[in-house]
């Protein structure tokens, strides 16, 4: 490859072709543009005209230049120019190449870019026939050198792991390094780690090492903390940089149970700051639903944190029997409970039956002896579903008979009457201390304090099952805390008061710990390894390196101490682990995780992703050549007049087409509404006659052809110039646009729905006209018992039709345009019915007609099959034969005249009924 600056050529000798350009220039210059042939009748006038100058046929210089540039671009493009060609000599080497990859969670955000870089590296290695091996430090496997293109086929399956390489894995990797020299290419995740130095040394022993690092900053998210009622989240980044804004999202299930983003909040890194903190104040309901926080757009396990129970706050309802001692707060039975629970739980306050629908996790009854039957049922039901009822004794309970003879369903044990007090002024003995907790007690492991003493308590009745229900007792063996399971829930009774009256327990730290153990409150501090010793935790959800939560499936359980203290690895994946009564999250990044950019020794060359990439320019140049040639085509056309002249607007047309394209696109996705609008526009732009679709194709075609013929006739004979007729579907189409509705009656057509009839009646009342045509005048007089007649009666029954009469001799229909007395169609029946004249209409002496109704008749009913007579084909020839010979044609003519009169009547109303026209009409009538 030959290099010119940053551009190299794979076939530089082709560039010699550029020398041919000047010759081409001369040749092209000599050839004039080809002439166009045009038809032009005025050519006679041109004959003999000579051109003024003969030189104009030369191709203009700019067109030549255009062509030269195109040819030059082709030549240069074919010679294979490459921008920023990889300099093979540098990264060179002939020996085997080991690609070492950190493949940790920190590599995940730009994993794709890394794979592209690796692919390029492998391509080059393949070109140089170097054997290649891959070594992932997070999961080292024995190194095996293979042909580069074989390795290349495997890299699609390479994924990072959601942990970082630890000392042991690196040591294992060092042990796996093959014998013999090789070069190394280390794709680092840019985090500094203790274990890098030994590996680097080991690799440098074998050969040259090149490091590849992404220049992008890495974002990480620390686990959420809960402080003072708010969530605190700390975001960190690897490299200080300018002010940057990232988006923090909280994912979880929405109330409908679908995965959703419940929370989205922008967090700003100050300039040069490495960490940013945000505080979120969320309602408890929302907080409880969030299953993970993540930094949006960062596909890395480090940018995801899973909250565990530490964020979960239990809802505790506190109910005391005695609320009358106002002001004596320290004596309130709930005071110490509130103090103990407020930091870690959400407290509910209110009447028991009001609280139960909120489904609290815990209900605390402090010195409440009896509950009403309804309350008891409700509480029992709630207990069955997993509630925890925590009861405290007190004077009321001691004084009541609850659970005395038989065990109360809401008490774990039977109580003896009265209770006892020890160590008081009026009693013997010392106040009693707590006995150590037994192994099966939930309190096992809590440290006892000497200062916890009990003065008074209620006593449990010795029963066969008492022993198994005691979970804490005093040194003398009397039960202090008893427990009973009810359904999925449990009832716990402290045999002392919840305040300091009977014991000092509520004053001690032990009380808080005991509540915590009972899961009344949840702990805010991370558990210590010792606390979890011997427990096994089952993974529920694990994260992959990209921070995508996945079902843990059959992954084995993890020992408690490992869960807390061991480093993440194949055996301990980051994720959410479920223990006996709580869940713990193990996140990739914690507050202790060290995030610092790796500083490599100077001797190691470091490459970045931002290295200018090798860009072949051939495609661009050849593409440019094509563009130039296209421009040449247009310019040549323009020059030879083909773009102008006969079609001066060709360019404008192209521009218009471009400009109209979006409009067309809009038109294409026309909504039904728009389609309806189009129909409405078409129907209203001109007068449009309409016919009712009968679902009988032949009848409908004839009706359409008939109205078309009538429209043509109107167009040529009158000033009414209708557009093409339309068929309307009574059920779906709007009717108000059409002045006249032609309705051929067929026995088989469906009866319109009630909604359609409502539309039809509105149409009739607002001045529309329906022409019913039974088409049976050849076989029946009107009213005859034909199927069409019966159908017409059926169809018209729900219509709002006034009284009818056969068209009287002086009806305005007989003179709106033509003077008519017959209304034939294909048949020449006489009976055509219209709205009856008002009964008081009288014929005035000397007048040819009465002063009749002011309205247009809403219906015209006949059977003469007018559409058949009117029907015309596209050329304007009659479609159907009418009658015979000239009389038939005459009948057709009268039918057209009737149609014209009909439309004129609809459009002009009673205009011709006006007496003003009498003289003219008399004249025309020849009287």
């Amino acid at each position, binding site marked *: 490859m030959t290099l010119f600056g940053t551009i190299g050529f794979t076939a530089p000798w082709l560039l010699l072709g550029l020398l041919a350009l000047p010759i081409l220039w001369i040749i092209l210059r000599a050839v004039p543009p080809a002439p166009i042939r*045009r038809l032009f009748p005025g050519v006679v006038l041109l004959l003999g*005209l000579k051109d003024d100058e003969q030189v104009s046929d030369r191709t203009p210089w700019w067109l030549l230049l255009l062509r030269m540039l195109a040819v030059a671009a082709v030549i240069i493009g074919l010679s294979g120019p490459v921008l920023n060609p990889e300099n093979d000599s540098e990264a060179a080497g002939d020996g085997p190449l080991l690609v070492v990859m950190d493949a940790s969670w920190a590599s995940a955000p730009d994993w794709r870019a890394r794979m592209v870089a690796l692919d390029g590296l492998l391509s080059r290695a393949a070109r140089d026939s170097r054997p290649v091996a891959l070594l992932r430090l997070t999961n080292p496997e024995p190194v095996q050198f293979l042909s580069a293109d074989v390795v290349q086929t495997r890299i699609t399956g390479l994924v990072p792991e959601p942990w970082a390489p630890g000392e042991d894995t690196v040591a294992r990797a060092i042990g796996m390094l093959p014998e013999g020299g090789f070069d190394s290419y280390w794709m680092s995740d840019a985090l500094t780690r203790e274990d890098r130095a030994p590996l680097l040394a080991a690799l440098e022993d074998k050969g040259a090492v090149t490091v590849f690092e992404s220049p992008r900053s890495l974002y990480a998210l620390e686990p959420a903390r809960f402080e003072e009622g708010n969530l605190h989240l700390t975001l960190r980044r690897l490299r200080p940089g300018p002010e940057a804004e990232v988006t923090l999202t909280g994912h979880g299930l929405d109330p409908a149970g679908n995965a959703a983003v419940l929370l989205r909040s922008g967090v700003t890194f100050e300039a040069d700051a490495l960490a940013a903190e945000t505080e979120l104040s969320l309602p408890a309901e929302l907080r409880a639903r969030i299953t993970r926080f993540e930094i949006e757009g960062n596909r890395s396990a480090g940018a995801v944190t899973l909250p565990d129970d530490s964020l979960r706050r239990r809802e505790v309802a506190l109910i005391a029997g005695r609320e009358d001692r106002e002001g004596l707060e320290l004596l309130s039975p709930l005071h110490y409970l509130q103090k103990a629970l407020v930091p870690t739980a959400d407290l509910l306050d209110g009447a028991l039956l009001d609280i139960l629908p909120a489904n609290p996790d815990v209900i605390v009854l402090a010195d409440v002896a009896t509950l009403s039957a309804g309350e008891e049922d409700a509480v029992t039901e709630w207990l069955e579903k997993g509630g925890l009822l925590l009861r405290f004794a007190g004077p009321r309970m001691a004084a009541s008979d609850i659970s005395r003879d038989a065990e109360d369903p809401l008490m774990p044990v039977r109580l003896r009457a009265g209770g006892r007090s020890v160590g008081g002024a009026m009693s013997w003995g010392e106040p009693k201390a707590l006995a150590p907790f037994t192994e099966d007690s939930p309190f096992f492991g809590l440290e006892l304090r000497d200062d916890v003493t009990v003065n008074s308590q209620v006593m449990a009745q010795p029963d066969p099952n008492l022993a198994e229900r005691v979970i804490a007792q005093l040194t003398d063996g009397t039960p202090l805390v008893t427990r009973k399971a009810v359904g999925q829930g449990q009832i716990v009774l402290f045999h002392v008061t919840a305040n300091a009256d009977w014991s000092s327990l509520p004053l001690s730290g032990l009380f808080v710990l005991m509540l915590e153990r009972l899961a009344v409150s949840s702990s805010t501090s991370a558990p210590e390894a010792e606390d979890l010793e011997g427990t096994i935790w089952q993974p529920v959800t694990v994260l992959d390196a990209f921070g995508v939560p996945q079902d843990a499936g059959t992954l084995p359980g993890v020992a408690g101490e490992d869960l807390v203290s061991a480093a993440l690895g194949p055996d301990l994946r980051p994720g959410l682990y479920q223990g006996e009564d709580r869940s713990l999250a193990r996140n990739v990044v914690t507050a202790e995780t060290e995030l610092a950019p790796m500083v490599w020794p100077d001797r190691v060359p470091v490459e970045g992703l931002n290295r200018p990439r090798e860009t072949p320019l051939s495609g661009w140049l050849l593409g440019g050549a094509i563009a130039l040639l296209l421009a040449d085509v247009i310019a040549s056309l323009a020059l*030879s*007049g083909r773009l102008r002249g*006969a079609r001066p607007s060709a360019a404008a047309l192209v521009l218009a087409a471009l400009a109209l394209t979006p409009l067309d696109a809009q038109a294409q996705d026309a909504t039904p509404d728009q389609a309806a609008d189009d129909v409405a526009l078409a129907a209203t732009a001109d007068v449009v006659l309409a016919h009712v679709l009968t679902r009988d194709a032949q009848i409908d075609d004839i009706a359409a052809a008939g109205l078309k013929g009538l429209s043509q006739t109107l167009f040529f004979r009158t000033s009414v110039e209708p557009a093409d007729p339309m068929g309307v579907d009574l059920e779906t189409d709007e009717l108000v646009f059409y002045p006249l509705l032609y309705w051929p009656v067929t026995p088989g057509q469906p009866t319109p729905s009630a909604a359609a009839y409502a539309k039809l009646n509105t149409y009739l009342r607002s001045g529309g006209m329906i022409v019913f045509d039974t088409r049976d005048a050849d076989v029946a007089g009107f009213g005859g018992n034909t199927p069409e007649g019966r159908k017409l009666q059926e169809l018209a029954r729900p219509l709002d039709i006034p009284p009818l009469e056969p068209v009287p001799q002086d009806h305005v229909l007989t003179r709106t345009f033509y003077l008519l007395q017959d209304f034939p169609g294909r048949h020449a029946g006489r009976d055509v019915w219209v709205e009856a004249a008002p009964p008081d209409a009288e014929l005035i002496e000397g007048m040819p007609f009465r002063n009749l109704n002011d309205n247009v008749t809403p219906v015209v009913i006949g059977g003469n099959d007018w559409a058949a007579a009117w029907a015309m084909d596209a*050329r304007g020839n009659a479609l159907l034969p009418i009658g015979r010979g000239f009389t038939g044609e005459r009948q057709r003519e009268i039918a057209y005249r009737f149609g014209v009169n009909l439309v004129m009547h609809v459009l002009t109303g009673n205009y011709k009924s006006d007496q003003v026209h009498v003289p003219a009409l008399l004249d025309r009538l020849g009287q």
Partner: protein
Amino acid sequence: MTPDVTQLRSEAQREASRFPALLARAEQLAGTVLLGEHGRRRAGLGDDFWQYRPLRAGDSYRQIDWRRSGRGDEQFVREREWQVAQSVQLWVDPGASMRFSSHKDLPTKAERARLVALAAAILLIRGGERVGLTGWKLPPRRGDVQSLRLAELLSDEGDADYAEPEARGMIPNARALFVSDFLGDIDAVEAALTKAADRGVRGVLCQVLDPAEESFPYHGRTIFESVGQTMAHETLKANELRARYLERLAERKARLEALCRLTGWHYQCHHTDQSAQSALLWIYRALDGEHG
């Protein structure tokens, strides 16, 4: 039935189907003119009466209307302009040069010429005139059927590039309407007009031109061909020819106009991008004016 016959028949059918359309268009066009001229036209129709005018020197006694003159002392002549129906003879250029349109939205000159001529014919027929073609093909007759025959014959197309006006068969003192682009041999036009003038035939010369012929919007190296492709002219720079072409066209028009003045004809130039109605109106007025 041989394929030839089938083809002939289908072609004939296709050709025939164009007459109703042309006829309908022409009738509608005629209708638009009729509206404006309605009353006058009808009143002058027919038979007898136009006006009385006093007897002038040179009138023969036979012309005196005795009934009118008997009422007074003066003698009146009853003018009988309309008593004899006029014959109007049409000639529409069938030449190939007429079948040219510079834009797909424009009608060809031939279409426009036929439309205008037929519409004028329908008007005249309705006005009671006899209309026919020059030459021997269709002598002037009355009646609606005549317009059908006219439509049929006007649709004939000739092969020659430029047709010469048909001046044979002219009825003396008839009227004539020549519609053409008059780009062909002007001497033939002159001969025809002179011949017509000799027979006392006056009329109207309607030149139909395409807008492109009027503006010559061509550029670059071009070979111009006549529609029949019998003539060609090559130029290297069409735009350079424009001024000289327009000069020649103007000269041609001026010549036609002078010719018309000389022979008592009317001359009008109509472009296919103008409305046909304006041409029809003008033709109608021009013919009408002659009756007056």
